[in-house]
């Protein structure tokens, strides 16, 4: 019998870890992975609250989050490939100029 707050605490820790990754890492691929961690932390919150309310809508929104995450990963990785072709680097600081 695990209380709801435990799941919320795990989710908050995972979300904070993802935020740290976005701010600390200097690699575009790792930043995208940190965004996936954050999305999954939110998924855990949705499912835990859905279980708390005995409602399936909490699980349905997880499917939509997964779909948006798949679209985001596809477009984001395509952008990473296009950027890498131009600068031969994955550091986001390499792409600070608007025109070259």
């Amino acid at each position, binding site marked *: 019998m*695990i209380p709801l707050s435990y799941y919320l605490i*795990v989710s908050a820790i*995972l979300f904070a870890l993802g935020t*740290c990754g976005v701010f600390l890492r200097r690699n575009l691929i790792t930043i995208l992975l940190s965004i996936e961690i954050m999305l999954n932390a939110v998924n855990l919150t949705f499912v835990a609250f859905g*279980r708390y309310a005995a*409602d*399936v809508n909490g699980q349905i929104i997880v499917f939509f989050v997964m779909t948006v*995450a798949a679209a985001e990963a596809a477009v984001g990785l395509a*952008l990473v490939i296009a950027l890498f072709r131009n600068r031969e680097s994955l550091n986001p600081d390499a792409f600070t100029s608007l025109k070259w």
Partner: protein
Amino acid sequence: MAETIAFYLFSGLAIIASALVIGQRNPMYSVLLLVASFGAMAGLFIQLDAPFVAMALMIVYAGAIMVLFLFVVMLLNAPQEDALPYDHTHPFRHPVLMRFGALLAALLVVQLTYALLRARDLRVPVAGRSDASVVGSVGELGRVLFERHTFAFEATSILILVAMVGAVVLARKESGPQ
């Protein structure tokens, strides 16, 4: 008792794997550790009587999206971060701005802790409750998804199509007449 042990095992595994994801320098290890983190989260979802979400997480996330990440990591072949040449000119490498960012991060942690401490009804058990028949049934899930959320489901298919076309256009090698 077994449920409690499983909860601590899965949540600890998910947190440790996620911390290692952002601690790795090699993105290849990061992707593989994120797959481990997703496996642990699937265990948590099964404990919350959401087996279909757990399977979708393993098949869609760990099976498809992470393979996409692995392909890109192997395609680009840039295992190490090259942070040093850019650190001197970075606009945020400024003491005042760095202190402001640290203050914002601390405020996020304080806010989350405050919300979790002040909320009521949080002691209600969620895992291992007896009314699992409604939430855990895949048939009920499909019925609600295709009856009440039909429009959102169809809009999702358009979103995937647009993302696919966008990815092809963005990653295409620019050749031919410019």
